């Protein structure tokens, strides 16, 4: 029988739908009977959602100012950046 700890081990696979059918069924059975694991799975899922809500990038003024300074300096120096890479 699937124990709580076993479920914690495969929790991400369950959330992402990566479990084989039988294992997926035993997780579902366990969750029907176990409130603690339902809370755990719900919270683990919420943590991931939170990360998505968090990760959008927005440049702030401080960063723009730093870039302006570095670019101005590099332009003045006739920069030959040694780490220059052709992106293509």
């Amino acid at each position, binding site marked *: 029988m699937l124990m*709580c700890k076993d479920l*914690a*081990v495969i929790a991400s696979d369950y959330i*992402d739908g990566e479990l084989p059918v039988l294992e997926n069924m035993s997780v579902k059975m366990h969750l029907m009977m176990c409130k603690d694991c339902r*809370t755990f799975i719900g919270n683990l899922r*919420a943590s991931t959602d*939170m990360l998505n809500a968090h990760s959008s990038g927005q440049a702030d003024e401080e960063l723009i100012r730093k870039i302006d300074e570095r670019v101005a300096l590099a332009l003045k120096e006739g920069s030959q950046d040694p780490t220059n*890479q052709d992106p*293509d």
Partner: protein
Amino acid sequence: MTDSALQKEQALIEGLKARNDQSYQEAVRTYTSGMLAVARFYLDHSSSEEIVQDCWVTVIDAIQKFEGRSGLKTWLHRIVANRCKNRLRSARREVSTDFSEALEPELADRFNAKGRWDLPPKLQFHDSADTLMENGALSDCLDKHLSALPETQRSALMLYEAHQHKSDDVCNILDVSASNLRVLLHRARQKIFLMVENFQETGEC
């Protein structure tokens, strides 16, 4: 893109090639947010800002070879992505995740010998993710913990979400097997879960 937008972009590119200060200022303001968003798929906040700054310095020379096969924005995003991937490749050698251990020790300790919860999660994260992230302190705390994750765990987590759960793409970028990706993802998620739980219970990061 409309004709006038194309002309505007072409004029901007000419200005960049001519090393014109004002063109750089305009381009930095137009494209930096997008570049930062690309970097955040791969890296934590402060490393992303660092990479984007470095990219702009790179652009000064690289723009001379820009032939306009893609738009300026796409070209800039590709520079950022390549830099991030290089950073990850070099970091990967430093990071060691124990792939045989799927549970974080801190979580594993919360089960008894029979495998039942000794210390179950007490609170449910009721609020929606967006509501929770409006809490500035929690958002800062998440940043701090993301920065503290081993680089491959963090990138696995961010890339997996950013690439809409396409494991093959993420495995290619990180050069890890599918099963190791699953471990990286799960370990990273547990750390974030433990952090949010601690924050909700104590209000401290």
